[in-house]
């Protein structure tokens, strides 16, 4: 968008046109002379004056008025072909013609100036609006400043650099520009810095330096100076008309406020993120600390009971207490394993050593690890013996199964069986663990494998909720799938899919 804001110079051409118009009018007058009175012929000249006032301005229209009067006098007022006037009423006509000419040309030129002014203002507003729009959709400090520098460069035709104080060290300044190959030298830095310092010390008006190839303009908001906008012209000194200066100042004000705004918004957002992260970390540590200490309460409690009160307790009571302590200690063991796995997954340090192994053995091992709790519960196991092997890391997959079965144990009532089924489906080995517990709310089905997710149940279900997410991590690290669904008829089915071991017969070996 380029605005031509130069002043109109003296255009001789307009006077020539005016003269031609007078000549044309005179010829026309001659032609109609026989039909009209001279008073009507003057209308032709009036028309000429009006036309030249509208199109060519005050000067030419006055010239046309004078030329018209003289021509009219010469050709159409008796005595013809002289400038003398017989009838003094024509003097009045002449004056009237002149005055009308002047008035009309003054009015039209004023209208034209007003129109030009309105167009200019409209362009200015439009430019500011476009800049405002660009800023509204820019989302980062960089794109903000790029929008500003681009607009200023396109409007005024000079290269633009914005200098802002460095976030880390506010005594240094950083340049921003959207002209990639612009040259920024030491003078620019020192000038910008000194302007920055000058304006920090006392508020001044922004003035452009005369005859300079670079202008260093402070970006000032209510809080003070926030940066410097530099205009550079490699060739000749920067020159701006007063309208341009005004527009530039408007741009600078807008830019200063916008830049300040985004810097503040960024700072606020960053502070909020820090706060949220801290809150989350605290919540997590609290949950883990609680879960680690809770089993110890029973273990230490029982042991101290046996130690101090042993003589008061009968065999049954002792048996009972010891059972509790044993199970709680197993739980603690399981939790610690999970925490370690979680850390390893997070750190990307999970090492998978694959071996061919039977699903049967994996499930058996998992149940073994779950100890007394699994022994107390009824399991229905349907694993056909002729299933192909899976090629997996035994320790990890067993842990994954332990977490899933543990989940089933937690949420299914004591007297209902937990089913464990395995089968091949499309060359994949599929394991299903089905419990008859409360099931999962439909909106949560995808979320139960999220870290720390727990179904909102008010009762004493312990655990920070990371077991299933660890299982998912392990199974996916093996290239398998795990998903959960509600079982028709109540309860939950968790389905694990692993690829079966396809290594050829002779190449099956152990990796160490």
């Amino acid at each position, binding site marked *: 968008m380029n605005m031509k804001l130069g002043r109109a110079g003296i255009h001789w051409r307009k006077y020539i046109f005016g003269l031609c118009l007078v000549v044309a009018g005179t010829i026309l007058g001659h032609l109609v002379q026989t039909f009209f009175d001279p008073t009507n012929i003057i209308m032709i000249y009036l028309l000429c004056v009006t036309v030249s006032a509208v199109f060519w301005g005050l000067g030419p229209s006055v010239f046309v008025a004078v030329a018209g009067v003289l021509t009219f006098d010469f050709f159409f007022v008796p005595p013809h072909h002289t400038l003398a006037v017989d009838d003094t009423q024509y003097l009045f006509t002449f004056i009237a013609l002149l005055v009308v000419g002047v008035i009309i040309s003054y009015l039209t030129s004023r209208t034209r100036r007003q129109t030009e002014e309105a167009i200019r203002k409209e362009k200015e507003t439009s430019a500011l609006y476009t800049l405002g729009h660009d800023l509204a959709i820019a989302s980062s400090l960089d794109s903000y400043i790029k929008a500003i520098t681009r607009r200023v460069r396109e409007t005024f035709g000079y290269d633009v650099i914005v200098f802002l104080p460095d976030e880390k060290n506010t005594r240094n300044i950083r340049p921003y520009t959207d002209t990639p190959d612009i040259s920024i030298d030491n003078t620019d830095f020192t000038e910008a810095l000194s302007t920055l310092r000058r304006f920090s010390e006392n508020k001044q008006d922004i003035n452009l330096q005369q005859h300079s190839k670079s202008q260093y303009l402070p970006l000032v908001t209510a809080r003070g100076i926030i940066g410097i906008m530099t205009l550079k012209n490699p060739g000749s000194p920067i020159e701006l008309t007063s309208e341009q200066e005004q527009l530039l100042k408007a741009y600078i004000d807008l830019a200063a406020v916008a830049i300040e705004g985004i810097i503040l918004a960024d700072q606020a957002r960053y502070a909020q993120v820090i706060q949220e992260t801290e809150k989350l970390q605290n919540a997590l540590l609290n949950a883990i600390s609680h879960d680690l200490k809770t089993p110890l309460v029973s273990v230490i409690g029982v042991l101290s009971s046996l130690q101090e009160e042993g003589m008061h307790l009968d065999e049954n009571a002792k048996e009972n207490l010891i059972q509790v302590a044993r199970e709680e*200690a197993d739980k603690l*063991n399981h939790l610690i*394993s999970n925490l*370690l796995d979680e850390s390893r997954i997070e750190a990307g340090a999970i090492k998978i*050593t694959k*071996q*061919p*192994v*039977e699903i*049967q*053995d*994996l499930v*058996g*091992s998992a149940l073994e690890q779950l100890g007394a709790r699994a022994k107390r519960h009824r399991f229905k*196991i349907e*694993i056909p*013996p002729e299933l192909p*092997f899976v090629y997996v*890391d*035994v*320790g990890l997959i*067993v842990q994954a199964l332990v977490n899933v079965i543990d989940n089933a144990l937690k949420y299914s009532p004591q007297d209902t069986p937990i089913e464990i089924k395995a089968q091949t489906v499309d060359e994949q080995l599929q394991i299903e663990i089905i419990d008859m517990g409360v099931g999962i709310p439909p909106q949560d089905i995808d979320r139960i494998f999220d870290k720390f997710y727990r179904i909102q149940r008010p009762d004493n279900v312990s655990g920070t909720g990371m077991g299933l997410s660890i299982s998912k991590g392990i199974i996916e690290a093996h290239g398998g799938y795990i998903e959960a669904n509600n079982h028709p008829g109540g309860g939950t089915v968790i389905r694990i899919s692993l690829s079966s071991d396809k290594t050829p*017969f*002779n190449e*099956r*070996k*152990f990796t*160490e």
Partner: protein
Amino acid sequence: MSDNKILIVDDEGAIRRFLRVTLKAHDYTVFEAASGKEAISSTADNKPDVIILDLGLPDVDGVEVTRMIREWSQIPIIILSIRGSESDKIAALDAGADDYLTKPFGVGELLARVRASLRRINVAANEPVFTSNDLVVDLAQRRVTINDNDIQLTPNEYELLRVLVNHAGKVITHNHLLREVWGPEYGNEFHMLHVNISNLRHKIEPEPARPKFIITEPGVGYRLKAD
């Protein structure tokens, strides 16, 4: 007090204490060592019948200690491992350890492993019969019965069972089983081993899907349960 001497090697005082108290309560004579160096010198000086060796020693790796002891002694070694270092377990077994216990473990497992390790020494040549519940394996007569009913086994299946019986109560790696039954060049034929174990289970286990004699140690090998 029995004649059996056990050397406990662990740098954790609390674990040594637990092991010492438990083993002494079962009439074993107990020696202790807190490092690899101490373990080797104690083995040489005291000539234990079983060594319980923790893998995480401060000076020398447990696997290395196993290797060093094996250079001059066949004393049974039971290693203590933690979950998650399966490869260490296998490395130790390959270096010559006889069995392992995964920490944390219970007293029952501990005593079973110790007994199994001692069995090899204490079982004299004229006790070729292995009994466990209804299963009776008479190695002299090459006869296997369940509840006095004869079980027909193929030569390979019988060999497999024989090796298991000779190591009763202890874990045997897949590799070791294959080498002993079929020969060194079959060390990696895991599938073949599995098929034979599976067939054997079908013949001697009341519930082949939930074996109580031939136990799988996933990722490691098999163990014939002895008591």
